Structures are given as structure tokens and as C-alpha cells.
């Protein structure tokens, strides 16, 4: 083995125009797809989309068999695909997206901290802001991909298969609403997961912490709200907004414009929005405080 390559030459090249956070984003996505669990989660997450497309196809085929007066037409009218259907679909996709965020994000920063890679990264012209932006955007894109792409795909097939010539004008606002919800959901989820990853270096512990926070706090808040509900119902409505999962669902209701089910527990949109915004800010604070190029001991 040669001690060193005598043909080695220095490099005096030109600077790339790419912003410095972009390679970090690429790296986050590259590392994510090394994880086979993520691949399977994406695959499983695509199943509801396929079912929805088949459902839409069958629905419009049945409707096409009869013009709406006979049995088949009544069947077609019964299985309508409206914004409420999108809501139900996105609720399940939201859970898939949260799982994806957990798998990818829980180790995104933790791995860099454990391997001390942060020191090597920050020895480059990388600022804290660009590092966090790159990591967050990488995770955000992956989470967004699990909600927005399936939702837009369904919307496309809904319009492509529909017999109604006005279907497009009727559903023209859907993509904006779907995108708005996907962005809010992905932002909130990805920031929270990254904050856990910055707090806890071990990926699976961070994942457990994130899952515990999301579901246990919802359970606790739900129980507390149930207790308060007996004494003063409006307080319980506000309180429920502080459950993480409930807050996400409530914002989903508000953005998609779907009224709450009569039987569902009422939750305040205001407290939900405040809680999600607060969590996002706290997550950013945790990221800024915990991600340091050098762990100063003294």
C-alpha cells in the first residue's frame, strides 16, 4: 500500500452556487432511505391511496352504468367522495407521516451528536441556522411526501374519473386546503421529532420519547378534560386543544373546512393552534440550544 499518492494535487476549483443547507437536506434524505423500515412504511402508507383510487374508479364506473335514477345510480350517489372523505384519508396518512417522521427524524441529529460529526460539519462554512434548516427541510420533505403526494394523487383521480363536468370547479380549492394542512402537519411533526433527536442521542430512545409525548400527553389531557367536563364544559373544550394529536386533528378540521362529528368531543381551534405554535417554538429553541459544534466541558 503506498504511503501516499505522489500524483496528488491540490484543488483550486470554483464555488458551487448551491446554498450550504442543500447538501445537508440531501444527506438527510440519503440516510433516510438507507433505513429499510422507512421503505416499508412508505409502501404500507401507499396502500390507502391505492384503495382510494380503486374506490373512486368503482364509484364512477357504477355511476356511469346508470344515469342516477336506478339502483346503481343510488349506489353511486351514496358513495360520494367529498372533502370529508379527504379528511378521513388524510387522518390515516397523518399517522403514517408521524411514523415516518419518527423513523427518520429521531436519529437525524442524534447520530451526528453521537458520532461527534457535528464538529466536522461545523468546521466547514456551515452555520447553525443552515445546519438546522437542512436537517429540518430534509425531514419535512419526507413527511410532506407521505401526506401531500397521496392527497393530490387522489384529487387528480377524483377529477380524471369523474363524470361530472363541473367536478374540477367544485374541487378547485381542495389542493390548496390539502397543501395547507400537509404543510402545517409536516412542520409541526418534523420540528417536534428533531427536537427529541437533539435532546436524546440514541435514535430509538428519541423515537420512544416522541411517541410517548404525542400519545401519552393526548391521553392525559383527554382524561383531564373529561374530569373538567363534568364541572364546566367550555373549559374542557379549551383543555382538549392541548393534547398533541387532538390539536392536529382540530387544525385539520379547521383547514379542510370539515365540521366536527356530532358525537366527537369538541376541541377549541384556538387552543389547538396556540399549542401547536408553542410546541414549534419550543422545538426550535431546543434545537438552537442543544445543537452545538463543540461540547464544552469546562
Amino acid at each position: 500500500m503506498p504511503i501516499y499518492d505522489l500524483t496528488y494535487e491540490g484543488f483550486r476549483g470554483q464555488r458551487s452556487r448551491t446554498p450550504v443547507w442543500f447538501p445537508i437536506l440531501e444527506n438527510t434524505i440519503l440516510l433516510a432511505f438507507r433505513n429499510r423500515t422507512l421503505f416499508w412504511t412508505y409502501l404500507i402508507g401507499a396502500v390507502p391511496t391505492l384503495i382510494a383510487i380503486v374506490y373512486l374508479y368503482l364509484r364512477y364506473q357504477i355511476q356511469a352504468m346508470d344515469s342516477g335514477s336506478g339502483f346503481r345510480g343510488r349506489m353511486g350517489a351514496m358513495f360520494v367522495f367529498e372533502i370529508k372523505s379527504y379528511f378521513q384519508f388524510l387522518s390515516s396518512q397523518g399517522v403514517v407521516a408521524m411514523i415516518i417522521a419518527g423513523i427518520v427524524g429521531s436519529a437525524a441529529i442524534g447520530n451526528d451528536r453521537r458520532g461527534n460529526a457535528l464538529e466536522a460539519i461545523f468546521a466547514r462554512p456551515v452555520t447553525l441556522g443552515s445546519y438546522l434548516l437542512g436537517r429540518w427541510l430534509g425531514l419535512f420533505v419526507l413527511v410532506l411526501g407521505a401526506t401531500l403526494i397521496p392527497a393530490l394523487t387522489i384529487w387528480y383521480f377524483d377529477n380524471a374519473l369523474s363524470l361530472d363536468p363541473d367536478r374540477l370547479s367544485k374541487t378547485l380549492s381542495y389542493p390548496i386546503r390539502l397543501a395547507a394542512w400537509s404543510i402545517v402537519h409536516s412542520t409541526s411533526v418534523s420540528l417536534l421529532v428533531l427536537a427529541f433527536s437533539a435532546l436524546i442521542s440514541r435514535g430509538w430512545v428519541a423515537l420512544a420519547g416522541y411517541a410517548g409525548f404525542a400519545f401519552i400527553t393526548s391521553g392525559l389531557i383527554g382524561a383531564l378534560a373529561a374530569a373538567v367536563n363534568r364541572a364546566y364544559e367550555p373549559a374542557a373544550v379549551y383543555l382538549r386543544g392541548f393534547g398533541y394529536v387532538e390539536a392536529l386533528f382540530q387544525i385539520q378540521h379547521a383547514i379542510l373546512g370539515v365540521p366536527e362529528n356530532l358525537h366527537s368531543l369538541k376541541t377549541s381551534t384556538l387552543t389547538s393552534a396556540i399549542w401547536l405554535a408553542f410546541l414549534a417554538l419550543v422545538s426550535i429553541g431546543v434545537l438552537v440550544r442543544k445543537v452545538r459544534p463543540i461540547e464544552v466541558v469546562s
Partner: protein
Amino acid sequence: MRPRRRALPSLHPGAEHTCALILELDRLCVDYGRFRALHEMTLSFQGGAMGLLGPNGAGKSTMIRCILGMLRPAAGSGRVLGLDIHRDGAEIRRSVGYMSERDSFPQHLNAVQWLTFLGELSGLTLVDARTRAHECLWFAGLEEARYRAVETFSVGMKQRVKLAAALVHGPKLVFLDEPTNGLDPAGRRQMLELCRALNQQHGIHTILASHLLPDVEFVCSQVMVMSKGRLRAYGPIADLKRSERKAFVVRVAGSMERFRAEVAQRGASSSEPDRRGTIVEPPGDAGSEFVFAAARAAGVAVLELSALQRSLEEVFLDSLRAGELADSGAAR
């Protein structure tokens, strides 16, 4: 007509600056909370290979990290390749390579991917970064192992990856922090040869931080001694090793006892002979002719005569001792 492409900015703005000084520090101080880790460091490095010597905790790594903009200086100023350490931290890190003392690797990436990523972070395009990753890993002797995950590497291979990572963007100045840590003698020798080749064959200015004196002596022509966050000595190794005493190391053919007796008779002192010979301190302004005259009178032949030099270890220990005396004097 095809629009003319705007020229991309150079990767090394500092390198374009034709500055006489590679590194210039003026009363630089760094604090960790209330603890002052670096006290008023002032130095000018004109290029070449410089050793940064000091015991553990002397402030070597702190100084390097401050120069790279990873730590904010509490006071003072500094310039690296003509770039201000207060203002141009990002530009400095683009033009300078840094091999960290501690292992700093990601998980689940192979050596090529890791270096490509670091190259891109330094401002290289993806294609350039990938090409450079291969070149630098080849240079560091890791050509066979470059597609293996870095976490599976031996200590020696990890050190080589760190060296290659420091070079991936083609820096003009490179900081090597304890590059031989944890290496066996053969690996250490190879690493030191690589470090020496950087400056001697490729013209990369090198600053090597170590507490191993032979490593510094092998690679560097200049040295800077630090302890307790203060600069204790700085200059070319040859100058620092030159003894303040005017004395000669003499080896003779014939009776050493007769020669020493003759030297004593002529009013000079000589030490007990050892492997090197005896150290003769001529009186007054007398020079080497005194030694030859004494040898002639004693009937012995001079085999070897050289001016007395201190070892680097003596330079280092003397600097530390002088520093401690100065500290205790200042405290009183």
C-alpha cells in the same frame, strides 16, 4: 446569442489575497464561562509547517477552534489568510482544513459519501466533491477501503479519513490536531510522512498540534509552545534549539581524560563524557580554535565538533519552566 455565464466566485477567497502572513493573532483571548482558556495570544506565522506544542489542556485545540470561528474570542483580533476571524468565519472555514483530535464521523456513511458530503459543505459542486473525495482517500492510502462504512474502520484508518476530510476542499492551510493519536508505531510513521508531505511536496501550510515532541520535530520547521493558555515560546526549531551557552560537543580520538585535563588547565570547563562526547565551554570569547589548541596540546585528534544544541524536549521543558516562573512572579 447565448448569454455569457457569470464567473463563479473562487472557492478560496483567502487564498487569492496575497498576504505575507498566513496566520496573525493579536492579544487573542478565549473564555469558557469564567475560565480563561486562552490569554492574549500574539503571533505571526508566515507559512510552512508549524508545530503547536503543549501539555494536555494547554489551549491548543481551543486556539484552533477559535481561529476557525467555532469559538467566539473574548478579546483580541486575528487574521487567517488575510481573513478576519471575527467577521469571516465561514470564509476561513472554506479556505482552511481541520483535522479534529476526536473522531468525528457520521453513522451509516462510507468514506466516499462522507468526504463528498464535507466537500459539498465546503462549497464544491457534487461532481467536484466526489472526485476530490476519491483523490484524497487515495492520497491518504485508503483506496481499497473507501466504500466501507467509516464506523467499521480501525483507529489508523479513521485517522487517515480525518486527514483526507481535512484536504477534500483543497485548503491552503490545514490544522492537524493530534494526528497520531492511538496509532501503532508503523501507522504513526506513515501518518507523519503524510503530514510532512503536505507541506514539503504540496505546499499546504500546516499547523500540527501535538504533545508528542518527535512528531512535531519530524513534520515541522517551526514550533510554538503553549501552556495554561499562554504562548511560551515561538520560532524556528533550529533557533530555539540553539543553546544560550557558547559550548561545543567534542568527540576525540585518544585519551578523553588527557583532553579534559588540558581543557581544565586552560581555564575552561568540560562535562563528563557521554555517548555524544564531552561538552566544552571555552572561556571568554574563545571559539572552536580553543578546542583544537587543547586537543593538540593533549595529543588527541578531534573527531567531531559541533555547537551545543538543546533537544526539543529541553526547549519545551525550559519554556514551560520559564512560563511557570513568569506566572508565579505575576501572581506575586
